């Protein structure tokens, strides 16, 4: 009888720990050995000694965290390769979330656990598509783990943006999108849809665009939004981090249509409360149907939920005879599609406030 993953894959204060392999996955604090699923800041933190990840994730981490802070030693592992760490066979399979994102497949003494990190299963021109791996325990996120979240095809949402540009040809369309993943996907989808005008980009988004370009993902004519004058931006698409779409930067633009690309935009009161006139339901996370289809595809008898709406997903899994367990991993969140941002109120920063995923402007 192979050992149940709960005997060798443990939840610790620093995060998931593979005991026989002696490494953590996406640890919360600096550790000796870390396997990183992808480059978002709630998964890829600074200060580890040895870091194992895809080449793309290593490049993203290094660019975000700075030379030397993304692991004293880095080891790249391709999607097709395997590695033996203390008797544990480790492979990385595409997670379809952002460039370089990977599921970590762990095999030990005949048992297999898959830690999927963040993922989505639909097509994304900027990263490899998710591949389900049958396993004994599937570790999943549940950011959009409620049946109200059903993302429409991203291409349809891009078509709505293009339609708005036709209806309001004089207005600047400011699209809020996170720096890593969402921005490049929105740009690539616009290009696929035949939009070949220059797109103006907030400075905070440039570093990640450059990393994507270095891996051969080209995004057409991009220009800095900061130096362009107001007239040039009339009727243009401007893309910036979500935090910037309502600040002074955006208000300088000509009668802007404020758009935001996020799975949360499905709930219109959320869109309204953020002052978004054109919500674009585009997410890098699996929606309710994708989550449930994935549970069926990997056919694991047991699923562990790291964060998000775990109650609903575990309930739905239970209805199909799948055992569910909520891990309540701390420091993990919907950071790449944050709902609330730290407000500017009197006194100290709120508890649990974390730095945003974007680069500092």
């Amino acid at each position, binding site marked *: 009888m192979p050992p149940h993953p709960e005997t060798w894959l443990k939840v610790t204060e620093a995060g998931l720990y593979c005991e026989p392999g002696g490494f953590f996955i996406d640890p919360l604090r600096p550790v000796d050995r870390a396997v990183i699923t992808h480059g978002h800041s709630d998964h890829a933190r600074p200060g580890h000694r040895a870091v194992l990840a895809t080449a793309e994730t290593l490049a993203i981490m290094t660019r975000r965290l700075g030379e030397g802070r993304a692991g004293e030693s880095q080891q790249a592992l391709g999607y097709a390769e395997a590695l033996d760490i203390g008797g544990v066979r480790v492979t990385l399979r595409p997670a379809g979330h952002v460039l370089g994102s990977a599921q970590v497949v762990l095999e030990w003494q005949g048992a297999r656990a898959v830690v999927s990190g963040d993922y989505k299963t639909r097509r994304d021109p900027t990263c490899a598509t998710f591949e389900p791996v049958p396993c004994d325990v599937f570790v999943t996120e549940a950011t959009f783990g*409620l049946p109200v979240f059903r993302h429409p095809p991203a291409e349809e949402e891009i078509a709505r943006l293009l339609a708005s540009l036709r209806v309001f040809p004089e207005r600047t369309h400011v699209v809020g999108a996170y720096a890593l993943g969402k921005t490049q996907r929105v740009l690539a989808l616009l290009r696929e849809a035949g939009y070949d005008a220059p797109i103006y980009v907030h400075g905070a988004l440039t570093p990640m665009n450059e990393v994507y370009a270095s891996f051969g993902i080209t995004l057409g004519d991009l220009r800095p939004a900061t130096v362009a004058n107001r007239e040039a931006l009339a009727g243009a698409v401007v893309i910036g981090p979500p935090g910037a779409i309502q600040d002074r930067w955006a208000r300088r633009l000509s009668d802007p249509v404020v758009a935001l690309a996020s799975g949360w935009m499905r709930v219109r*009161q959320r869109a309204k409360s953020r002052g978004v006139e054109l919500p674009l339901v585009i997410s890098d996370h699996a929606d309710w149907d994708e989550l449930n289809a994935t549970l069926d595809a990997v056919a694991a008898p047991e699923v562990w939920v790291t964060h998000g709406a775990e109650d*609903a997903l575990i*309930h739905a899994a239970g209805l199909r005879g799948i055992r569910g367990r909520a891990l309540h991993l701390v420091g993990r969140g919907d950071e790449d599609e944050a709902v609330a941002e730290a407000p500017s109120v009197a006194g100290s920063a709120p508890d649990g406030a974390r730095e945003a995923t974007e680069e500092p402007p």
Partner: protein
Amino acid sequence: MKRFADLLERLVLTPARNTKLAHLKDWIATEPDPDRGIGLAALTGELSFDAAKAGLIRTLAAERTDPVLFALSYDFVGDLAETVSLMWPAREGVNEAAPSLAAVARTLATTSRGELPGIVAAWLDTLDASSRFALLKLITGGMRVGVSARLVKVALAERYGIDVAEIEEAWPAVAPPYTALFDWLEGRGPQPRGVDAPVFRPPMLANPLDEAELAEFDPREFRAEWKWDGIRVQCVATRTGAKLWSRGGEEIGHAFPEIVEAMEGLEAVLDGELLVLREGVVAPFSDLQQRLNRKAPGAKLMREHPAHVRLYDMLFEGTGDIRGLGFDARRERLETWLAREAPARMDLSPLVPFSSWEELAAIRAGAREAGIEGLMLKRADSPYVAGRPKGPWFKWKRDPLTLDAVLMYAQRGHGKRSSFYSDYTFGVWRGEELVPVGKAYSGFTDKELAWLDRWIRNNTIGRFGPVREVEKALVLEVAFDAAQRSSRHRSGVALRFPRISRIRTDKPAAEADRIEAVLALLDPAGR
């Protein structure tokens, strides 16, 4: 239905009045009849369907969704119609055409309660998520998209380039889908006219006073009145009927039938403050609030919360328009008219005599009665001008009081806040325990709201239906206009118009204010 859903979506997401107007004008210009008029009526709440209610939606949700998943989803989204529209499960093999808006309205109006669930479920199967939302909002009423009847009238006026007063004149004579109205506006027919109908006239509004400017004004050229803590209303009585209008042009007579009754037989257009008055004493605003919350008040509520209008201006006497006269002249006409007609449930708002600004400032500072919000200053010669002209009228509100209180319970808000915990019950210390002294749901920025919502979700220690009890750890600075005795609060006091002025993450809960500090602020009349 899809086009109406799109319109609704745009209106929900557009805070700016002018953009809302643009969307309405576009709808008026492009939507075919009768959906055009039906849509406008739906937005302004003119349509109401007795057989279709929120309970129907709950029933359908229970039939078609898992109860646990529904409860978790509803808890997240906060709005029933939106929750069901988003999670409604697709049904294989449904490819019927979606119904038109007019067909939906007609069916809702004529179908019996028993047949409705099956029909609505079949519609939901054919519609996309945003159309499902529109349909469910149509059923429950209360679109909450910030479109009043008045805004629709303004949109019509702008679309057809005519004075909005002309639309107001025609409005009482038409009904959804407003065919006669559009015939007139598009040159196919005469202007529909309600003969001498009790129509709304936009009121004259005041600007906040900048105290620094006061020195430049001559006190002899101004009149002062109390600013009453009720709601501004317009009483319109003509030979054909009587109507009570809110300041924004919404008809509210159904909630205050005793006022409408008191207007019968009169002929005038009057401007005043709607109050709850007991033996001549103005009751706290919360008493009026209870009346405003009811569409049709019961006998008990009307007996215990009697409504009253305190008049301060007159726009028409008989059929004569006196808006062009100066304030003093209109006031004289109002006083004479009141003395002659002596209508029930109405009295005169007295002038507050003063001879210098210093004297008036002292009067304002000394006023702590529940029913008074501050003072109004009006130029003695000012004609009655619709809108908010700069210069003739000022409101001079009392300075707010503040208190450091501890957040105790939170509840989700309504409308755009329905997915956030935005209604806060807060308390102060009495000995070792916290006692609630009020509820606030305004004063914070959207960012602060997002922060508070997250804090509440992370610090919940109990749930009672929609209410969450939180860790007694967060201090809120609360601003309010007055403190009053209250038997409805365990603390024995209630605050008037409390709002969150600051989040005091710097202050430990133990250092929040004590009940003694609140009692010291009670207004003399209520002590």
